Protein backbone atom coordinates (compact mmCIF):
# COMPACT_ATOMS: atom_id res chain seq x y z
CA UNK A 1 0.00 0.00 0.00
CA UNK A 2 2.59 2.49 1.11
CA UNK A 3 6.12 2.31 -0.11
CA UNK A 4 8.11 5.48 0.11
CA UNK A 5 11.39 5.94 -1.63
CA UNK A 6 12.89 9.29 -0.94
CA UNK A 7 16.26 10.37 -2.24
CA UNK A 8 16.17 14.13 -1.98
CA UNK A 9 18.54 17.04 -1.86
CA UNK A 10 16.90 20.39 -1.18
CA UNK A 11 18.98 23.56 -0.95
CA UNK A 12 17.96 25.90 1.87
CA UNK A 13 19.62 29.04 3.17
CA UNK A 14 22.62 27.74 5.11
CA UNK A 15 22.74 24.04 4.27
CA UNK A 16 21.22 21.31 2.15
CA UNK A 17 18.51 19.00 3.34
CA UNK A 18 19.86 15.66 2.23
CA UNK A 19 17.74 12.60 2.87
CA UNK A 20 17.79 8.95 1.80
CA UNK A 21 14.81 7.02 3.07
CA UNK A 22 13.25 3.81 1.78
CA UNK A 23 10.48 2.30 3.79
CA UNK A 24 7.23 0.34 3.58
CA UNK A 25 5.80 1.48 6.91
CA UNK A 26 2.51 3.37 6.57
CA UNK A 27 3.07 5.78 9.43
CA UNK A 28 6.29 7.70 9.44
CA UNK A 29 7.72 10.43 11.57
CA UNK A 30 10.28 13.14 10.92
CA UNK A 31 11.78 14.34 14.16
CA UNK A 32 14.24 17.12 14.86
CA UNK A 33 14.83 20.54 16.35
CA UNK A 34 13.22 23.56 14.76
CA UNK A 35 15.25 24.68 11.76
CA UNK A 36 16.51 21.17 11.07
CA UNK A 37 14.75 21.07 7.69
CA UNK A 38 11.67 19.06 8.62
CA UNK A 39 9.11 21.37 7.02
CA UNK A 40 11.36 21.83 3.99
CA UNK A 41 11.38 18.07 3.47
CA UNK A 42 7.60 17.88 3.83
CA UNK A 43 7.12 20.72 1.33
CA UNK A 44 9.44 19.02 -1.12
CA UNK A 45 7.32 15.88 -0.89
CA UNK A 46 4.20 18.00 -1.51
CA UNK A 47 5.86 19.52 -4.57
CA UNK A 48 6.16 23.02 -3.16
CA UNK A 49 9.98 23.18 -3.33
CA UNK A 50 11.05 23.74 -6.91
CA UNK A 51 14.71 23.48 -5.88
CA UNK A 52 14.40 19.85 -4.78
CA UNK A 53 16.59 17.40 -6.69
CA UNK A 54 16.76 13.63 -6.67
CA UNK A 55 14.09 10.97 -6.79
CA UNK A 56 10.80 10.56 -4.99
CA UNK A 57 8.55 7.57 -5.36
CA UNK A 58 5.31 7.11 -3.44
CA UNK A 59 3.15 3.98 -3.63
CA UNK A 60 4.73 2.90 -6.90
CA UNK A 61 4.39 6.32 -8.56
CA UNK A 62 7.33 8.53 -9.40
CA UNK A 63 6.70 12.12 -8.35
CA UNK A 64 10.18 13.44 -8.92
CA UNK A 65 13.10 12.19 -10.90
CA UNK A 66 15.66 14.87 -11.68
CA UNK A 67 17.69 12.53 -13.88
CA UNK A 68 14.68 12.31 -16.23
CA UNK A 69 13.54 15.89 -15.74
CA UNK A 70 10.34 14.64 -14.16
CA UNK A 71 8.74 16.81 -11.51
CA UNK A 72 5.02 16.39 -10.95
CA UNK A 73 3.30 19.65 -9.96
CA UNK A 74 1.66 19.62 -6.51
CA UNK A 75 -1.85 19.21 -7.91
CA UNK A 76 -0.94 15.92 -9.56
CA UNK A 77 0.79 14.33 -6.58
CA UNK A 78 -2.20 13.57 -4.41
CA UNK A 79 -0.99 14.62 -1.00
CA UNK A 80 -3.12 15.71 1.91
CA UNK A 81 -1.04 18.46 3.42
CA UNK A 82 -1.81 19.89 6.85
CA UNK A 83 0.73 22.71 7.30
CA UNK A 84 1.70 24.08 10.65
CA UNK A 85 -0.07 27.37 9.92
CA UNK A 86 -3.19 25.33 9.01
CA UNK A 87 -4.13 27.66 6.09
CA UNK A 88 -7.86 27.18 5.98
CA UNK A 89 -9.56 29.18 3.24
CA UNK A 90 -11.05 32.19 5.03
CA UNK A 91 -13.67 32.81 2.32
CA UNK A 92 -15.25 29.37 2.72
CA UNK A 93 -17.18 27.80 5.59
CA UNK A 94 -16.23 24.48 7.18
CA UNK A 95 -18.02 22.44 4.54
CA UNK A 96 -16.49 24.49 1.72
CA UNK A 97 -13.04 23.97 3.17
CA UNK A 98 -13.55 20.24 3.60
CA UNK A 99 -14.72 19.91 0.00
CA UNK A 100 -12.12 22.22 -1.52
CA UNK A 101 -9.97 19.28 -2.55
CA UNK A 102 -12.74 16.73 -3.02
CA UNK A 103 -13.12 17.34 -6.74
CA UNK A 104 -9.76 15.73 -7.35
CA UNK A 105 -10.50 12.93 -9.78
CA UNK A 106 -7.09 11.46 -10.06
CA UNK A 107 -5.12 10.44 -8.15
CA UNK A 108 -7.59 8.98 -5.69
CA UNK A 109 -6.01 7.02 -2.90
CA UNK A 110 -9.19 5.35 -1.69
CA UNK A 111 -12.70 6.46 -0.89
CA UNK A 112 -13.25 9.09 1.74
CA UNK A 113 -16.67 10.60 2.17
CA UNK A 114 -17.52 13.95 3.66
CA UNK A 115 -20.02 12.46 6.12
CA UNK A 116 -17.53 9.92 7.36
CA UNK A 117 -14.88 12.60 7.87
CA UNK A 118 -17.36 14.88 9.67
CA UNK A 119 -18.26 11.96 11.91
CA UNK A 120 -14.76 10.74 12.74
CA UNK A 121 -13.51 14.26 13.43
CA UNK A 122 -16.73 15.18 15.26
CA UNK A 123 -17.29 18.20 13.07
CA UNK A 124 -21.00 17.72 12.23
CA UNK A 125 -22.17 20.69 14.33
CA UNK A 126 -19.80 23.04 12.53
CA UNK A 127 -20.74 22.20 8.94
CA UNK A 128 -21.80 25.74 8.02
CA UNK A 129 -19.68 27.64 10.54
CA UNK A 130 -17.40 30.35 9.18
CA UNK A 131 -13.72 29.63 9.72
CA UNK A 132 -13.12 32.75 11.79
CA UNK A 133 -15.45 31.47 14.48
CA UNK A 134 -13.63 28.17 15.10
CA UNK A 135 -11.27 27.49 18.00
CA UNK A 136 -7.68 26.35 17.46
CA UNK A 137 -8.50 22.69 17.95
CA UNK A 138 -11.50 22.88 15.62
CA UNK A 139 -9.42 24.54 12.92
CA UNK A 140 -6.83 21.80 13.28
CA UNK A 141 -9.53 19.18 12.77
CA UNK A 142 -10.99 20.97 9.74
CA UNK A 143 -7.52 21.13 8.17
CA UNK A 144 -7.11 17.41 8.79
CA UNK A 145 -10.57 16.75 7.36
CA UNK A 146 -9.86 18.85 4.27
CA UNK A 147 -6.74 16.79 3.63
CA UNK A 148 -8.68 13.53 4.07
CA UNK A 149 -11.57 14.61 1.82
CA UNK A 150 -9.11 15.21 -1.01
CA UNK A 151 -8.56 11.43 -1.11
CA UNK A 152 -4.80 11.64 -0.69
CA UNK A 153 -2.27 8.92 -1.32
CA UNK A 154 -0.15 10.32 1.44
CA UNK A 155 -0.94 12.55 4.39
CA UNK A 156 1.64 15.15 5.39
CA UNK A 157 1.13 16.58 8.85
CA UNK A 158 3.41 19.35 10.03
CA UNK A 159 3.48 19.66 13.83
CA UNK A 160 -0.20 18.75 14.15
CA UNK A 161 -0.13 19.28 17.91
CA UNK A 162 2.21 22.23 18.25
CA UNK A 163 0.57 25.35 19.55
CA UNK A 164 -2.16 23.42 21.33
CA UNK A 165 -2.26 23.25 25.12
CA UNK A 166 -2.22 19.90 26.92
CA UNK A 167 -6.00 19.42 27.29
CA UNK A 168 -6.43 20.18 23.60
CA UNK A 169 -3.57 17.87 22.65
CA UNK A 170 -5.30 15.11 24.55
CA UNK A 171 -8.38 15.73 22.40
CA UNK A 172 -6.63 16.02 19.01
CA UNK A 173 -4.18 13.14 19.45
CA UNK A 174 -6.89 10.46 19.45
CA UNK A 175 -8.26 11.95 16.21
CA UNK A 176 -4.86 11.60 14.60
CA UNK A 177 -4.56 8.03 15.79
CA UNK A 178 -8.16 7.28 14.77
CA UNK A 179 -7.65 8.77 11.32
CA UNK A 180 -4.80 6.36 10.69
CA UNK A 181 -6.94 3.43 11.75
CA UNK A 182 -10.14 4.51 9.98
CA UNK A 183 -8.85 5.71 6.65
CA UNK A 184 -5.62 3.74 6.37
CA UNK A 185 -3.91 6.55 4.51
CA UNK A 186 -0.12 6.45 4.82
CA UNK A 187 1.05 9.46 6.77
CA UNK A 188 4.20 11.39 7.50
CA UNK A 189 4.23 13.39 10.71
CA UNK A 190 6.66 16.14 11.55
CA UNK A 191 7.33 16.95 15.17
CA UNK A 192 9.92 18.27 17.55
CA UNK A 193 8.35 16.33 20.41
CA UNK A 194 9.79 12.82 20.79
CA UNK A 195 6.82 11.47 22.74
CA UNK A 196 4.32 12.73 20.22
CA UNK A 197 6.38 11.22 17.45
CA UNK A 198 6.42 7.82 19.09
CA UNK A 199 2.65 7.88 19.55
CA UNK A 200 1.97 8.73 15.93
CA UNK A 201 4.56 6.88 13.90
CA UNK A 202 5.92 3.38 13.55
CA UNK A 203 9.10 4.36 11.84
CA UNK A 204 10.96 7.58 12.22
CA UNK A 205 13.80 9.64 10.90
CA UNK A 206 15.83 12.12 12.88
CA UNK A 207 16.94 15.22 11.06
CA UNK A 208 19.66 17.55 12.30
CA UNK A 209 20.71 20.50 10.12
CA UNK A 210 19.45 18.72 7.05
CA UNK A 211 21.29 15.47 7.68
CA UNK A 212 19.79 12.15 8.69
CA UNK A 213 21.01 11.35 12.20
CA UNK A 214 19.13 8.09 12.61
CA UNK A 215 16.22 6.18 11.10
CA UNK A 216 14.35 3.04 12.01
CA UNK A 217 11.53 1.76 14.24
CA UNK A 218 10.12 4.66 16.24
CA UNK A 219 10.45 3.14 19.71
CA UNK A 220 14.08 2.24 19.15
CA UNK A 221 15.10 5.43 17.36
CA UNK A 222 13.53 7.68 19.97
CA UNK A 223 15.42 5.77 22.68
CA UNK A 224 18.68 6.18 20.79
CA UNK A 225 17.88 9.83 20.07
CA UNK A 226 17.57 10.56 23.77
CA UNK A 227 21.14 9.35 24.18
CA UNK A 228 22.44 11.57 21.42
CA UNK A 229 24.14 14.79 22.56
CA UNK A 230 21.89 16.91 20.33
CA UNK A 231 18.75 15.66 22.07
CA UNK A 232 20.07 14.89 25.54
CA UNK A 233 18.15 17.72 27.18
CA UNK A 234 14.88 16.21 25.98
CA UNK A 235 15.32 13.15 28.18
CA UNK A 236 12.97 10.24 27.61
CA UNK A 237 9.30 9.77 28.25
CA UNK A 238 7.83 6.31 28.55
CA UNK A 239 4.54 5.75 26.77
CA UNK A 240 2.15 3.30 28.39
CA UNK A 241 -1.17 2.20 26.91
CA UNK A 242 -3.92 0.77 29.03
CA UNK A 243 -7.60 0.38 29.88
CA UNK A 244 -9.27 2.19 32.74
CA UNK A 245 -10.60 -0.55 35.01
CA UNK A 246 -11.64 1.49 38.01
CA UNK A 247 -12.29 5.12 38.81
CA UNK A 248 -11.07 5.79 42.31
CA UNK A 249 -11.24 8.96 44.30
CA UNK A 250 -7.47 9.15 44.14
CA UNK A 251 -7.36 8.71 40.36
CA UNK A 252 -7.86 6.22 37.57
CA UNK A 253 -6.70 2.63 37.91
CA UNK A 254 -5.25 1.75 34.53
CA UNK A 255 -4.53 -1.84 33.56
CA UNK A 256 -1.51 -2.04 31.26
CA UNK A 257 -1.85 -5.79 30.92
CA UNK A 258 -3.19 -8.55 33.11
CA UNK A 259 -1.69 -8.23 36.56
CA UNK A 260 -0.06 -4.86 35.88
CA UNK A 261 -2.08 -1.82 36.90
CA UNK A 262 -1.04 1.70 37.74
CA UNK A 263 -2.76 4.66 39.31
CA UNK A 264 -2.80 7.88 37.33
CA UNK A 265 -4.35 11.25 38.14
CA UNK A 266 -7.60 11.76 36.33
CA UNK A 267 -7.14 15.42 35.58
CA UNK A 268 -10.14 17.00 33.90
CA UNK A 269 -11.13 13.96 31.86
CA UNK A 270 -14.71 12.72 31.96
CA UNK A 271 -14.58 8.91 32.32
CA UNK A 272 -12.21 7.76 29.58
CA UNK A 273 -12.11 4.07 28.63
CA UNK A 274 -8.64 3.85 27.16
CA UNK A 275 -5.71 6.06 27.91
CA UNK A 276 -2.15 6.61 26.83
CA UNK A 277 -0.01 7.59 29.77
CA UNK A 278 3.31 9.38 29.70
CA UNK A 279 5.93 8.76 32.37
CA UNK A 280 9.30 10.46 32.31
CA UNK A 281 12.34 8.23 32.76
CA UNK A 282 13.77 10.74 35.24
CA UNK A 283 10.68 10.32 37.44
CA UNK A 284 11.06 6.56 37.72
CA UNK A 285 12.94 4.92 40.60
CA UNK A 286 14.59 1.53 40.62
CA UNK A 287 14.45 -0.52 43.79
CA UNK A 288 15.80 -3.94 44.68
CA UNK A 289 12.67 -4.63 46.61
CA UNK A 290 13.19 -4.14 50.35
CA UNK A 291 11.44 -0.85 50.96
CA UNK A 292 8.72 0.29 53.32
CA UNK A 293 6.83 3.47 53.96
CA UNK A 294 7.10 4.99 50.48
CA UNK A 295 4.56 7.53 49.36
CA UNK A 296 4.76 6.44 45.71
CA UNK A 297 1.71 4.40 44.76
CA UNK A 298 2.91 2.65 41.64
CA UNK A 299 5.30 -0.24 41.38
CA UNK A 300 5.97 -2.75 38.63
CA UNK A 301 8.21 -5.80 38.89
CA UNK A 302 10.53 -6.54 36.04
CA UNK A 303 13.94 -7.55 34.76
CA UNK A 304 16.73 -5.25 33.56
CA UNK A 305 17.21 -5.84 29.84
CA UNK A 306 19.49 -2.99 28.77
CA UNK A 307 21.76 -0.42 30.39
CA UNK A 308 22.97 2.57 28.36
CA UNK A 309 25.05 5.62 29.09
CA UNK A 310 25.22 8.78 26.99
CA UNK A 311 27.54 7.56 24.30
CA UNK A 312 30.26 10.19 24.20
CA UNK A 313 30.00 11.61 27.69
CA UNK A 314 32.15 10.37 30.57
CA UNK A 315 31.28 13.10 33.08
CA UNK A 316 30.00 11.56 36.26
CA UNK A 317 26.64 13.26 36.44
CA UNK A 318 25.38 12.17 33.04
CA UNK A 319 22.42 9.86 33.44
CA UNK A 320 22.33 6.14 32.84
CA UNK A 321 19.29 4.67 31.18
CA UNK A 322 18.05 1.37 32.49
CA UNK A 323 15.50 -0.44 30.37
CA UNK A 324 13.36 -2.84 32.36
CA UNK A 325 11.06 -5.49 30.89
CA UNK A 326 7.87 -6.04 32.87
CA UNK A 327 4.75 -8.19 32.51
CA UNK A 328 4.37 -11.04 30.07
CA UNK A 329 4.19 -9.22 26.77
CA UNK A 330 7.69 -7.87 26.51
CA UNK A 331 6.72 -4.31 27.47
CA UNK A 332 9.58 -2.15 28.65
CA UNK A 333 10.00 0.96 30.73
CA UNK A 334 13.05 3.18 30.92
CA UNK A 335 14.34 4.64 34.17
CA UNK A 336 17.00 7.31 34.15
CA UNK A 337 19.35 7.15 37.13
CA UNK A 338 22.87 8.32 37.99
CA UNK A 339 25.83 6.02 37.24
CA UNK A 340 26.60 5.96 40.97
CA UNK A 341 23.15 4.63 41.77
CA UNK A 342 23.59 2.09 39.03
CA UNK A 343 26.85 0.90 40.61
CA UNK A 344 25.47 0.91 44.16
CA UNK A 345 22.61 -1.39 43.17
CA UNK A 346 25.02 -3.41 41.01
CA UNK A 347 22.48 -3.34 38.23
CA UNK A 348 23.19 -5.63 35.33
CA UNK A 349 21.21 -7.20 32.56
CA UNK A 350 19.00 -10.00 33.86
CA UNK A 351 18.68 -8.60 37.38
CA UNK A 352 15.19 -8.52 38.92
CA UNK A 353 14.13 -5.05 40.05
CA UNK A 354 11.09 -3.06 40.97
CA UNK A 355 10.13 0.15 39.19
CA UNK A 356 8.60 2.75 41.47
CA UNK A 357 6.88 5.96 40.44
CA UNK A 358 4.37 8.41 41.82
CA UNK A 359 0.86 8.58 40.43
CA UNK A 360 1.48 12.29 39.97
CA UNK A 361 4.43 11.62 37.69
CA UNK A 362 2.04 10.06 35.19
CA UNK A 363 0.27 12.31 32.72
CA UNK A 364 -2.46 11.27 30.39
CA UNK A 365 -1.33 12.00 26.83
CA UNK A 366 -4.46 10.86 25.09
CA UNK A 367 -7.81 9.51 26.17
CA UNK A 368 -10.56 7.83 24.27
Amino acid sequence: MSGLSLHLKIPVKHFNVDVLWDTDEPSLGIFGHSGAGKTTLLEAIAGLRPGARGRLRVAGETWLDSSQDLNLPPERRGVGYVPQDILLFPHLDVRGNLLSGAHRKEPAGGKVHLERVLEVLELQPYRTAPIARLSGGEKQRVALGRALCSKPKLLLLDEPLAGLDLPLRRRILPYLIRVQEEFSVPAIFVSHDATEMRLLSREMLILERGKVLAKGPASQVSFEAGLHPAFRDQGFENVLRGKVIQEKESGLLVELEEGCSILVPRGDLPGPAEVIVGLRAEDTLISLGFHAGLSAQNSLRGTVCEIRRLSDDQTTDSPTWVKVAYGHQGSTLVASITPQACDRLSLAEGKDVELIFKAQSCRILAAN
Partner: protein
Amino acid sequence: MNPAAWIALGISLKVAAAATLLVLPPGIALGWLFARRSFPGKSVLETIAYLPLVLPPTALGYLLLSLLAVRGPLGAASLGFDLDLLFTWKGAVLASSLMSLPLVVRTARVAFEGVNPRLEAMGRTLGMGPLRVFRKVTLPLARRGLVASGILGFSRALGEFGATVIVAGNIPGKTQTLALAIFNDIQIGEDRQARALVGLTALLAFGALWISELLTRRKGHA
Protein backbone atom coordinates in the same frame (compact mmCIF):
# COMPACT_ATOMS: atom_id res chain seq x y z
CA MET B 1 -30.87 71.48 -15.54
CA ASN B 2 -31.49 71.59 -19.25
CA PRO B 3 -31.79 68.45 -21.39
CA ALA B 4 -28.25 68.97 -22.71
CA ALA B 5 -26.90 68.38 -19.19
CA TRP B 6 -28.74 65.07 -18.94
CA ILE B 7 -27.37 64.06 -22.30
CA ALA B 8 -23.86 64.92 -21.09
CA LEU B 9 -24.43 62.87 -17.94
CA GLY B 10 -25.60 59.93 -20.07
CA ILE B 11 -22.52 60.14 -22.28
CA SER B 12 -20.28 60.41 -19.22
CA LEU B 13 -21.76 57.29 -17.64
CA LYS B 14 -21.63 55.40 -20.93
CA VAL B 15 -18.01 56.35 -21.58
CA ALA B 16 -16.88 55.69 -18.01
CA ALA B 17 -18.64 52.32 -17.83
CA ALA B 18 -17.22 51.20 -21.17
CA ALA B 19 -13.77 52.44 -20.20
CA THR B 20 -13.95 50.47 -16.92
CA LEU B 21 -14.93 47.30 -18.77
CA LEU B 22 -12.12 47.89 -21.23
CA VAL B 23 -9.45 48.61 -18.64
CA LEU B 24 -10.29 45.95 -16.03
CA PRO B 25 -9.02 42.80 -17.78
CA PRO B 26 -5.58 44.18 -18.69
CA GLY B 27 -5.46 46.16 -15.41
CA ILE B 28 -6.15 43.10 -13.27
CA ALA B 29 -3.75 40.99 -15.33
CA LEU B 30 -0.98 43.57 -14.92
CA GLY B 31 -1.76 43.95 -11.21
CA TRP B 32 -1.42 40.19 -10.74
CA LEU B 33 1.76 40.11 -12.82
CA PHE B 34 3.36 42.87 -10.74
CA ALA B 35 2.24 41.29 -7.45
CA ARG B 36 3.18 37.68 -8.15
CA ARG B 37 5.87 37.43 -10.80
CA SER B 38 9.35 38.75 -11.26
CA PHE B 39 10.81 38.95 -14.74
CA PRO B 40 13.42 41.01 -16.57
CA GLY B 41 12.12 44.46 -17.43
CA LYS B 42 9.42 44.34 -14.78
CA SER B 43 10.25 47.75 -13.33
CA VAL B 44 10.28 49.31 -16.79
CA LEU B 45 6.89 47.82 -17.65
CA GLU B 46 5.56 48.98 -14.29
CA THR B 47 6.76 52.52 -14.87
CA ILE B 48 5.14 52.58 -18.31
CA ALA B 49 1.85 51.35 -16.84
CA TYR B 50 1.93 54.09 -14.19
CA LEU B 51 3.03 56.81 -16.65
CA PRO B 52 -0.48 58.22 -17.28
CA LEU B 53 -0.53 59.12 -13.58
CA VAL B 54 2.11 61.81 -14.09
CA LEU B 55 1.99 62.54 -17.82
CA PRO B 56 -0.17 65.57 -18.76
CA PRO B 57 -3.42 64.11 -20.11
CA THR B 58 -3.11 66.38 -23.14
CA ALA B 59 0.27 64.81 -23.94
CA LEU B 60 -1.26 61.34 -23.84
CA GLY B 61 -4.15 62.61 -25.93
CA TYR B 62 -1.77 63.98 -28.50
CA LEU B 63 0.09 60.64 -28.65
CA LEU B 64 -3.18 58.82 -29.23
CA LEU B 65 -4.20 61.36 -31.87
CA SER B 66 -0.92 60.85 -33.75
CA LEU B 67 -1.32 57.07 -33.55
CA LEU B 68 -4.89 57.11 -34.81
CA ALA B 69 -4.56 59.86 -37.41
CA VAL B 70 -5.23 58.76 -40.99
CA ARG B 71 -1.50 58.56 -41.72
CA GLY B 72 -0.54 57.37 -38.21
CA PRO B 73 0.57 53.77 -37.43
CA LEU B 74 -3.01 52.81 -36.49
CA GLY B 75 -4.70 55.09 -39.00
CA ALA B 76 -6.98 54.08 -41.88
CA ALA B 77 -4.15 54.47 -44.42
CA SER B 78 -1.83 52.05 -42.62
CA LEU B 79 -4.38 49.43 -41.51
CA GLY B 80 -6.41 49.42 -44.68
CA PHE B 81 -9.62 50.06 -42.71
CA ASP B 82 -10.84 52.75 -40.35
CA LEU B 83 -10.94 52.01 -36.59
CA ASP B 84 -13.33 54.95 -36.43
CA LEU B 85 -12.15 56.12 -33.00
CA LEU B 86 -11.22 59.76 -33.55
CA PHE B 87 -13.99 62.21 -32.58
CA THR B 88 -16.37 59.40 -31.56
CA TRP B 89 -17.47 58.28 -28.07
CA LYS B 90 -15.34 55.18 -28.59
CA GLY B 91 -12.30 57.43 -28.80
CA ALA B 92 -13.34 58.95 -25.47
CA VAL B 93 -13.56 55.44 -24.04
CA LEU B 94 -10.04 54.63 -25.23
CA ALA B 95 -8.60 57.87 -23.86
CA SER B 96 -10.23 57.62 -20.44
CA SER B 97 -9.44 53.90 -20.04
CA LEU B 98 -5.76 54.65 -20.64
CA MET B 99 -5.93 57.44 -18.08
CA SER B 100 -7.47 55.16 -15.44
CA LEU B 101 -5.12 52.24 -16.12
CA PRO B 102 -2.52 53.20 -13.45
CA LEU B 103 -5.14 53.44 -10.70
CA VAL B 104 -6.66 50.10 -11.66
CA VAL B 105 -3.28 48.35 -11.86
CA ARG B 106 -2.09 49.78 -8.54
CA THR B 107 -5.22 48.87 -6.62
CA ALA B 108 -5.35 45.40 -8.18
CA ARG B 109 -1.71 44.87 -7.32
CA VAL B 110 -2.33 45.71 -3.68
CA ALA B 111 -5.37 43.43 -3.67
CA PHE B 112 -3.32 40.48 -4.96
CA GLU B 113 -0.46 41.19 -2.60
CA GLY B 114 -2.92 40.88 0.27
CA VAL B 115 -3.58 37.23 -0.63
CA ASN B 116 -1.31 34.84 1.27
CA PRO B 117 0.61 32.89 -1.39
CA ARG B 118 0.71 29.91 0.95
CA LEU B 119 -3.07 29.67 0.60
CA GLU B 120 -2.55 29.38 -3.15
CA ALA B 121 0.10 26.69 -2.60
CA MET B 122 -2.41 24.91 -0.35
CA GLY B 123 -4.89 24.95 -3.21
CA ARG B 124 -2.30 23.34 -5.46
CA THR B 125 -1.70 20.46 -3.03
CA LEU B 126 -5.48 19.93 -2.95
CA GLY B 127 -5.45 19.15 -6.63
CA MET B 128 -6.21 22.54 -8.18
CA GLY B 129 -4.24 23.59 -11.23
CA PRO B 130 -2.88 27.15 -11.39
CA LEU B 131 -5.99 28.46 -13.20
CA ARG B 132 -8.39 26.83 -10.77
CA VAL B 133 -6.38 28.20 -7.85
CA PHE B 134 -6.74 31.65 -9.39
CA ARG B 135 -10.51 31.26 -9.76
CA LYS B 136 -11.19 29.49 -6.47
CA VAL B 137 -8.66 31.04 -4.11
CA THR B 138 -6.95 34.17 -5.42
CA LEU B 139 -9.95 35.92 -7.01
CA PRO B 140 -12.38 35.42 -4.12
CA LEU B 141 -9.77 36.57 -1.60
CA ALA B 142 -8.81 39.62 -3.66
CA ARG B 143 -12.43 40.37 -4.59
CA ARG B 144 -12.99 43.47 -2.47
CA GLY B 145 -9.77 45.08 -3.61
CA LEU B 146 -10.57 44.28 -7.24
CA VAL B 147 -14.05 45.77 -7.00
CA ALA B 148 -12.46 48.84 -5.42
CA SER B 149 -10.01 49.04 -8.30
CA GLY B 150 -12.92 48.95 -10.77
CA ILE B 151 -14.72 51.76 -8.92
CA LEU B 152 -11.58 53.87 -8.80
CA GLY B 153 -11.04 53.30 -12.50
CA PHE B 154 -14.66 54.27 -13.17
CA SER B 155 -14.31 57.48 -11.12
CA ARG B 156 -11.11 58.41 -12.88
CA ALA B 157 -12.72 57.83 -16.29
CA LEU B 158 -15.72 59.92 -15.23
CA GLY B 159 -13.55 62.96 -14.61
CA GLU B 160 -11.28 62.57 -17.63
CA PHE B 161 -10.87 65.75 -19.66
CA GLY B 162 -7.48 66.41 -21.24
CA ALA B 163 -6.93 63.27 -23.29
CA THR B 164 -10.60 62.94 -24.16
CA VAL B 165 -10.96 66.44 -25.56
CA ILE B 166 -8.03 65.88 -27.92
CA VAL B 167 -8.97 62.41 -29.13
CA ALA B 168 -12.77 62.72 -29.14
CA GLY B 169 -13.31 66.44 -29.36
CA ASN B 170 -16.09 68.27 -27.59
CA ILE B 171 -19.17 67.50 -29.65
CA PRO B 172 -22.44 68.05 -27.74
CA GLY B 173 -24.69 65.02 -27.82
CA LYS B 174 -21.90 62.87 -29.20
CA THR B 175 -18.64 63.13 -27.28
CA GLN B 176 -19.39 65.88 -24.80
CA THR B 177 -19.10 64.36 -21.30
CA LEU B 178 -19.85 66.20 -18.05
CA ALA B 179 -16.23 67.31 -17.70
CA LEU B 180 -16.27 68.72 -21.22
CA ALA B 181 -19.70 70.31 -20.74
CA ILE B 182 -18.46 72.14 -17.64
CA PHE B 183 -15.53 73.53 -19.62
CA ASN B 184 -17.91 74.55 -22.39
CA ASP B 185 -20.35 76.29 -20.06
CA ILE B 186 -17.56 78.26 -18.42
CA GLN B 187 -16.21 79.29 -21.81
CA ILE B 188 -19.55 80.68 -22.93
CA GLY B 189 -20.32 82.24 -19.52
CA GLU B 190 -23.13 79.86 -18.51
CA ASP B 191 -22.01 79.93 -14.87
CA ARG B 192 -25.25 78.66 -13.36
CA GLN B 193 -25.32 75.68 -15.67
CA ALA B 194 -21.64 75.02 -14.94
CA ARG B 195 -22.30 75.10 -11.18
CA ALA B 196 -25.09 72.55 -11.51
CA LEU B 197 -22.87 70.24 -13.51
CA VAL B 198 -20.02 70.62 -11.01
CA GLY B 199 -22.41 69.67 -8.21
CA LEU B 200 -23.53 66.62 -10.15
CA THR B 201 -20.01 65.40 -10.85
CA ALA B 202 -18.97 66.01 -7.24
CA LEU B 203 -21.89 63.88 -6.09
CA LEU B 204 -20.98 61.06 -8.47
CA ALA B 205 -17.29 61.12 -7.55
CA PHE B 206 -18.06 61.22 -3.83
CA GLY B 207 -20.37 58.22 -4.06
CA ALA B 208 -17.90 56.14 -6.03
CA LEU B 209 -14.92 56.93 -3.82
CA TRP B 210 -16.93 56.32 -0.68
CA ILE B 211 -17.98 52.87 -1.83
CA SER B 212 -14.43 51.92 -2.81
CA GLU B 213 -13.16 53.24 0.54
CA LEU B 214 -15.74 51.13 2.39
CA LEU B 215 -14.77 48.07 0.41
CA THR B 216 -11.04 48.37 1.04
CA ARG B 217 -11.53 49.21 4.70
CA ARG B 218 -13.75 46.21 5.43
CA LYS B 219 -11.17 44.02 3.74
CA GLY B 220 -8.58 45.17 6.23
CA HIS B 221 -10.80 44.04 9.07
CA ALA B 222 -11.46 40.54 7.82
